């Protein structure tokens, strides 16, 4: 989806959890993405690095594997696939910190033409109100639904 570079990924039997491996100068890093149902047709999307030994997942570790664009392409593709299976799903994304939220925002901005073709996206503005996503505005959270 979106014609972006991405890693191959797999999903569990429920189509709620997704696994892929980031490959870069710092080695192979396992990533887990998951959709959590938090309301009627409302899902929260989160993802992080999996420590295969402890089972811990973290999204605060800076892996610096020089593949952020591929990871973001993979995340976009996962969300697209998920909403093919659950077309009424509203998917919310909130960064764990301002830097991570900014990263999401930059990627939505960068690929907006492709994203807007298939998703309605809303951003949570500084007044804590949702508004249709506009390029160049700062948001603290995002909500997407298939058109």
């Amino acid at each position: 989806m979106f014609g972006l570079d991405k890693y191959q990924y797999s999903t569990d039997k429920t189509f709620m959890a997704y696994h892929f491996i980031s490959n870069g100068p710092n080695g192979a890093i396992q990533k887990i993405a998951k959709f959590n149902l938090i309301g009627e047709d409302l899902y929260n999307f989160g993802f992080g690095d999996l420590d295969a030994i402890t089972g811990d997942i973290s999204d605060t570790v800076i892996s610096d594997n020089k593949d952020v664009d591929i990871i973001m392409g993979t995340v976009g593709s996962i969300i697209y696939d998920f909403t093919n299976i659950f077309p009424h799903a509203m998917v919310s994304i909130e960064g764990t910190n301002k830097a991570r939220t900014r990263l999401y925002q930059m990627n939505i901005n960068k690929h907006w033409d492709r994203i807007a073709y298939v998703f309605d996206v809303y951003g949570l503005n500084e007044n804590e109100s949702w508004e249709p996503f506009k390029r160049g505005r700062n948001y603290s959270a995002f909500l997407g639904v298939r058109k």
Partner: protein
Amino acid sequence: MLRKTKKEVLVQVGTKPLITVDPSLPSFEGHPFFEKKASAAKKLFARVGLPKGIGKKAR
């Protein structure tokens, strides 16, 4: 005669990409990392609600 590259002969069948299901992959249901994220998101939506009209549109 033009030589076709490997990329040119790839054909997409259907409109939806196939997803690889790994039956051995756990669902991570109840994992503290995702539970914490979900809890924070629930609180956020309890406070700010949904965008106007989106609920009807989604359903």
